[in-house]
């Protein structure tokens, strides 16, 4: 478990520093065809993969990515305990 989690975090850090910032396939298509303007700006706590109140940059992106990995792991650990207490379902 620990190895895969560390491997994910390694990818997050590499991505934060080296990922391309060009628009992705869908965004590029929307730009080219001219409907990108119809897209609405969405906001959330970690919009654009950066932590709020801090200067954006690769270090911030890496930190936000690590938070994301943590959120995912927490989700499944939660599901695990839900299933564990699954009792009384009979048949």
């Amino acid at each position, binding site marked *: 478990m620990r190895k895969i989690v560390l491997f994910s975090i390694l990818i997050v850090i590499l991505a934060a520093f080296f990922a391309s910032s060009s628009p992705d396939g869908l965004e590029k298509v929307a730009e080219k065809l001219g*409907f990108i303007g119809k*897209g609405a700006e969405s906001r959330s706590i970690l919009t654009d993969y950066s932590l709020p109140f801090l200067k954006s940059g690769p270090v911030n992106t890496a930190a936000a990515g690590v938070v994301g990995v943590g959120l995912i792991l927490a*989700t499944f650990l939660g599901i*695990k305990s839900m*299933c564990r207490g*699954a009792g009384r379902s009979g048949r």
Partner: protein
Amino acid sequence: MHIPDGFIDPKFSGGLAGVAALALGYCFARVRQMATAVVPQEALAAIGKGVHSLKTGSSRMLTAFGESLILKMGMVASLIFAAQMFNFPIAEGTSGHFLGGVLAAVLLGPFAGSLALAAVVIIQSLFFADGGFLALGANLVNMALIGTFLSYYIYALLKQKLPEELSIGLAAWLSVVLAASACALEIGLSGTFDLLATFLAMFKVHAVIGLAEVLITLGLIKVAGGYFEKNSSI
């Protein structure tokens, strides 16, 4: 691939969210069934558990297999989340990123795999605003159902005739192209832009992104699949 708000009619996407909820609920039921075993109440009482329950009958308990399956889902999902952050350039001013549907499908099977992808897509939408919240239904259908669930059966079908790695590769390419086509269809049906033009443009870009998907999928299956084989109970 993550559709932002505004590209899709929210009513349409809401309908798709219903479809996704039904399908993923079914996946959850199947995973729960796989991960738990029915234990008679007397057996639980014997080990001091479940004695609070006056009802006689049986309870579902997480098995050791179930526990490692759910942990494996978490690991595959975090790997996919991380890999999706790594946008790679594919042409002038265009990037693509990993989808991971076939990776999840091969490592976890169709039910657990779809749930892993769904968790990634939901967390990206809720916390990172990557993929609009009102477009979540469409994104779940494209990535968790078409990119993972359907792609699992494409992979399984191909595997009957072709060697393992070739089947994985073809399914991975198809998963990206099919998910992108579905995305174009949803945008077209929402009246955002001409359906055919959107489809052709999406197909062209994602036919290339799909090639990277093949390489990353095969690479990660080597790494993660090898790890899971060595550590069957995590």
